[in-house]
């Protein structure tokens, strides 16, 4: 048995190394993706191009626009005379937010009835949410400041006293600066590992079937699971090289701290890699051609990324979608990756996900081995 596995493994290794161009692509894809995503993905939108229509142009309105810009969220890129001008600029995609300040702003503020209109481009959900939150927070602060100045000037409070009845102090654990990359890298690791292991395994088997070599392999005494293991090992090696690349780049280039136990993480990643290999094998038994395989893989990657909680939190999903998410191994691994990398927790906090992933691996390998045909029909 071992001899046959060794024979298949040797064959696969020779073929993998012989096709070094493909190997090079496989090894560089995670690097390229991590670099592009690392710089491109930003959950927190800043410097939103903004049109300003200030019909007051007095000290109060200028101070308010100044405050908005100082927050870093808004860049006043154009000044227009009226509200219609703001909408026109948004229609033309020149700006994504607009501020409209009606006449006599200073007077109204003094009377306590100042009003500002914020217009936001709702077709871009990330920008509009950022703009809305930022504008609300900036306006509140600005209003509070104005109030404080007024009260202080009236001599109602002394300088060492605070006027506000309640203050919230928030402390953010694990990622105090809310750095996007700290959040993204564990998920990205899961996504890239899954995509690669699934793709490598599925295409390796399907290609064998498509070029007809599977027929000559099947008439030898190789058992299906021996063939599977022999085919998997080179892919496991490639997957681990990629894992080290991603973690290395994340930690040393992007400065994402690795809080937990790296050894533990490697073991759990191995488990995760097996789940991807099993899924790949299953896909290879379902699809007849490489084209079908690639279609299925892209579906799984996309849906798995969304349902797995890579970007969007899973607990907000409707129940049934939440459970559908369990079909994808990423769903089980993302909490593990975040737990070990970002939170620095050990297996004692992760055993639930680890058990789920282990069961997943066993199940998918059994299903894949059963579906893997010993015969051609």
């Amino acid at each position, binding site marked *: 048995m071992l001899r*046959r596995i060794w024979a298949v493994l*040797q064959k696969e290794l020779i073929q993998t190394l012989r096709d070094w161009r493909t190997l090079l692509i496989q090894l560089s894809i995670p690097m390229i993706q991590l670099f592009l995503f690392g710089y491109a993905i930003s959950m927190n939108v800043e410097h939103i191009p903004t049109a300003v229509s200030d019909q007051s142009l007095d000290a109060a309105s200028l101070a308010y626009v100044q405050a908005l810009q100082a927050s870093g969220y808004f860049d006043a890129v154009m000044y227009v005379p009226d509200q219609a001008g703001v909408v026109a600029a948004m229609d033309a995609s020149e700006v994504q937010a607009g501020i409209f300040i009606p006449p006599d702003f200073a007077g109204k503020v003094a009377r306590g009835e100042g009003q500002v209109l914020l217009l936001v481009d709702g077709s871009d959900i990330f920008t509009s949410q950022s703009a809305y939150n930022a504008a609300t927070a900036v306006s509140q602060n600005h209003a509070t400041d104005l109030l404080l100045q007024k009260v202080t000037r009236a001599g109602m409070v002394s300088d060492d006293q605070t006027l506000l009845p309640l203050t919230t102090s928030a402390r953010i654990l694990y990622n105090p600066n809310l750095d996007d990359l700290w959040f993204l890298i564990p998920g990205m690791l899961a996504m890239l590992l899954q995509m690669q292991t699934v793709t490598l395994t599925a295409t390796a088997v399907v290609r064998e079937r498509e070029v*007809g070599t599977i*027929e000559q392999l099947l*008439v*030898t*005494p190789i058992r299906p699971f021996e063939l599977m293991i022999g085919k998997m090992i080179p892919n496991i090696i490639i997957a681990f090289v990629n894992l080290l690349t991603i973690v290395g780049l994340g930690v040393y280039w992007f400065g994402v701290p690795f809080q937990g136990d790296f050894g533990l993480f490697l073991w759990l990643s191995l488990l995760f890699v097996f789940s991807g290999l099993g899924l790949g094998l299953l896909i290879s038994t379902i699809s007849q051609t490489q084209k079908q395989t690639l279609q299925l893989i892209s579906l799984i990657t996309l849906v798995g990324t969304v349902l797995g909680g890579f970007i969007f939190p899973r607990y907000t999903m409707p129940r049934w979608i939440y459970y559908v998410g369990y079909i994808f191994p990423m769903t089980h691994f993302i909490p593990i990756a975040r737990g070990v990398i970002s939170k620095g927790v050990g297996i004692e906090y992760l055993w639930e996900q680890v058990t789920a992933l282990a069961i997943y691996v066993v199940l998918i390998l059994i299903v894949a081995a059963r579906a893997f045909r010993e*015969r*051609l*029909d």
Partner: protein
Amino acid sequence: MSEYAIAADGLTKVFKTRGGLVTAVSELTLHVQPGETFGLIGPDGAGKTTATRVILGLLRRSGGHSSILGYDSMRDTYAIRERVGYIAQQFALPADLTVMENMQFFAHVQGVSPRQQKQRIPDLLAFAGLGEFTERLAGRLSGGMKKKLALACSLVHEPQVVLLDEPTLGVDPVSRREFWHLLGKLRAEKGLTILVCTPYMDEAERCNRVGLMVNGRFIAYDTPKAIKRQVNGRLLEFTPSDTPNTLALLQNPSRLGVDGILEVQTYGAMLHLFVDDPALRVPQLTAALSAQGITLDGLREIEPRMEEAFISLIRRQEEERVDGKRLSVVGTA
């Protein structure tokens, strides 16, 4: 039953397709003795490949029974795979491995020890004439060399039986002859049992026995000599001065006024004509055709070959089928 190297009894394979059930192999019975070379011959689509695959256990059978060396095709699949060599119809060796790597891979997989490999692989490569090409990628070999490599790989574990599915498809005549020369040597020196699928009639002549397969069943199953004897009449060969007209006349002999014309086949510019009695018919024929302004060149009697026998038997089969249908229509009316 284990006295046969290869046996099939009432073997049937039905494929489910979108258009319904298709019977690719129907009630096939064959028995191949150890050391025998058996030819599974027939036109494309006759079911030769399917029959071979079912006997090998590569496809599930729908009915009947089949075994190799007494091992059941379905139950003892791996016992068969350790003892049998197989060449698939299309080239199915890993194309991105070299000749040597291919040999070593199949040797490893078949459990040939490194010591045996050291001796056997060079021997087989020399035997197959591939000794100089050990470092060449299998995908870069010529068609004939690919087939020889496949043969060498299928022999690396010294099987007692080999199944070859159209091993000379797309191979030039010289390489074909060389390939059969190799098979002949294996047969003589090792007593190898060979089952070979082929559409080529000259290859069928080289077999001890053949099964002539049409539409999934045997229409003849005997030695090549006996099969040729099944053909009615004797065979004349000639080149007419006007082939299309002659053909039309001979296909409708009553117009020509000559009896005893059994069948006509084209053979390039020549015609092959089966008649009941050459001594009687040749003068009649020459006279009748020259009345139509047609002269016959190189007229002579020849021995029917497998090719003529094959075409004749298939035609007879088709006619019987059509007659059978007609009868059944009459019967129901």
